[in-house]
């Protein structure tokens, strides 16, 4: 499950566009999720006001991140939890393997955690001889198929139910079925035993509440409750940015998260964890460990993309994005896909390796419109494009061409003459109003899309005529 930058985004996107199965699967889901979100948003009075408040809370946390983390740690310890700090993904994995070894853990049951995908935790545990099983239905199927998740909240959005049926048939020796109810029952039966046998439960954290050290976890299936209730050790792995200041803020974020992610008013199970089991409790872990992970987050904080650390991983921007909806999650080459991934992945793994990702956007702004925290994703994509261009020497032809364009564009008379020429040339090539292949250097543009033929008269000409006729009228 390593990150896959091979071939680059353009190549992977090109492959994805030719994958018919993928298109069926994406069409069946992303539009649906988008519509459900719209309906759910309408069910909340003053949705935009809540978004403003949530945004304010997140930006406040980032501005005071050091102090917030210290206070959060203090509260966790007061609640009886153990706190660990991990600089890199490898450090986080090492810490978790150490906890497992020290407490004699043989089996780990995991609820969905994007951060553990980011650190490739499963591989590290298996290398240490510890069995690990994913318990979120989608993640379980990903694990069975030896695949990778392709959506933040719907990991197997790229698979059809027929494909899921074949994976379960092959790997679990159960009769083939494409009935989702049956497939879910197979998973329930297999995983029930895992929950009861596991020594360690591993989860992420949707939110950490600074004022009282609460870890908040939401799941629809109940696996999040299982792994934090049944095993004797619970480890929560979370990025250092997942904090909210107060319980009142948490309330607001919960209102936004489920609505934006799946169109529910609230996720089925919202679990608030305040420490290991207390005296007299019949269940709950004896030990609670919280691992706070940096892994490139402070690098993001230092620059133009600091704002993306306010992301609550709802996935709404994926469903809204015309690029994601066409190419799916795997094309982005790492664990976080879509518009948010195009910013987070270069931040975590390096812009040099993923310089193409900020370009995987038409900058239409649909992501910003649906973001529950109102993150200005297009601004950050542009900032990263700018950085990528500054870092890489550009070819001579491009530099010379742009210099020439600048010279022409800043001289109105020359510009008008030049555009008139180009307009005439392009109109001569058009068939039914479209140009399929542009000549010379412009052919790069039409390699991926058709070009609309220019209008017969420019906007400026039409405007002047309109004004003139008004005066006459």
């Amino acid at each position, binding site marked *: 499950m390593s990150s896959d930058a091979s071939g680059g985004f353009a190549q992977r996107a090109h492959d994805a566009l030719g994958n018919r199965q993928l298109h069926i699967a994406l069409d069946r889901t992303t539009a649906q999720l988008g519509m459900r979100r719209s309906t759910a948003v309408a069910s909340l009075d003053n949705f935009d006001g809540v978004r403003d408040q949530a945004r304010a809370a997140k930006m406040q946390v980032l501005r005071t991140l050091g102090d917030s983390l210290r206070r959060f740690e203090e509260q966790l310890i007061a609640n009886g939890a153990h706190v660990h700090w991990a*600089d890199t993904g490898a450090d986080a994995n090492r810490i978790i393997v150490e906890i497992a070894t020290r407490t004699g853990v043989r089996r780990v049951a995991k609820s969905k955690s994007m951060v553990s995908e980011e650190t490739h935790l499963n591989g590290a545990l298996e290398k240490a001889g510890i069995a690990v099983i994913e318990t979120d239905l989608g993640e379980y199927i990903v694990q069975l198929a030896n695949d990778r998740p392709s959506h933040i909240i719907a990991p197997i959005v790229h698979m059809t139910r027929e494909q899921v049926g074949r994976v379960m048939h092959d790997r679990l020796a159960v009769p083939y079925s494409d009935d989702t109810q049956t497939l879910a029952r197979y998973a329930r039966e297999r995983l029930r035993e895992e929950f009861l046998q596991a020594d360690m439960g591993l989860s992420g954290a949707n939110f950490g509440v600074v004022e009282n050290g609460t870890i908040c976890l939401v799941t629809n299936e109940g696996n999040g409750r299982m792994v934090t*209730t049944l095993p004797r050790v619970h480890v929560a792995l979370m990025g250092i940015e997942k904090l909210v200041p107060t319980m009142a803020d948490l309330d607001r974020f919960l209102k936004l998260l489920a609505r934006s992610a799946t169109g529910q008013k609230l996720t089925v199970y919202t679990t608030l964890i305040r420490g290991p089991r207390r005296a*007299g409790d019949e269940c709950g872990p004896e030990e609670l460990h919280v691992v706070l992970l940096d892994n490139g987050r402070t690098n993001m904080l230092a620059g133009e993309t600091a704002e993306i650390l306010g992301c609550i991983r709802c996935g709404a921007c994926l469903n809204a994005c015309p690029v994601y909806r066409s190419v799916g999650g795997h094309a982005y080459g790492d664990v976080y896909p879509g518009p948010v991934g195009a910013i987070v992945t270069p931040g975590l793994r390096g812009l040099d390796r993923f310089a193409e990702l900020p370009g995987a956007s038409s900058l239409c702004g649909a992501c910003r419109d649906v973001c529950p925290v109102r993150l200005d994703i297009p601004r950050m994509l542009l900032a990263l494009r700018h950085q990528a261009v500054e870092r890489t020497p550009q070819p001579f032809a491009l530099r010379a061409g742009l210099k020439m364009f600048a010279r022409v564009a800043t001289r109105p008379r020359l510009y008008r003459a030049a555009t008139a020429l180009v307009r005439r040339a392009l109109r001569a090539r058009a068939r039914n109003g479209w140009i399929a292949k542009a000549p010379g250097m412009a052919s790069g543009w039409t390699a991926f899309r058709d070009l609309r033929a220019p209008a017969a008269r420019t906007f400026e000409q039409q405007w002047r005529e309109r004004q003139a006729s008004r005066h006459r009228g």
Partner: protein
Amino acid sequence: MSDARAVILDRIERALRTARIPAVGDAGARAFQASDQRDAGARAFQASGVPLADRFVLEARALGVEVFVESTPEAARDRLRTLVAGLRVLSWNRDRLPYDCGAVVGEALPGSAPREEQAHADVGVTACHGAIAETGSLALISGPGCSRTVSLLPPWHIAVVRHEDLLATMGDFFLSRHDAMARAANCTFVTGPSRTADIELSLTVGVHGPGKVTVVLGP
């Protein structure tokens, strides 16, 4: 490990000198300061004049929760008796259930029974520490006699809810149950039956948690 802590905190301080964190508008800043007051949702709710019980029942049923509204303690108890007749019952401790429902589940397995036995129960019976009208959620705070497994392991969860458990919003719950939450290791909001939509968004109930949730709402 303490090393990593110092390194990360130091890096954060340096990062914050160059971080571009957008300024927050007035509306956001005001809201942030007022964050510990009763939330706007609850106030709007009160203004609407809809009785809490009506809203709770409406929301819960929309989620697929079966709801019985009973007007007397006896009726609530009888309802529970009918529901669990002949079934293997797992239950919160008898003294944790309202309306003397403990008498109905007298022979039930307790949350302290071996896990394997609990896992084979047909139904789990709990009370609740709050019923959230706005979302149809049941709030369950862990503690002695209130095992989390009861609402989690069996395929069917029945909650006996008193009228006085009803609250408008989750924000209200956070304020009014502040102390109880601080004492407990875990607080869970159950909003409908366990479900997944991982396969082509097709709704499937009862994946890991109970696929059936029933509320007996008493006086």
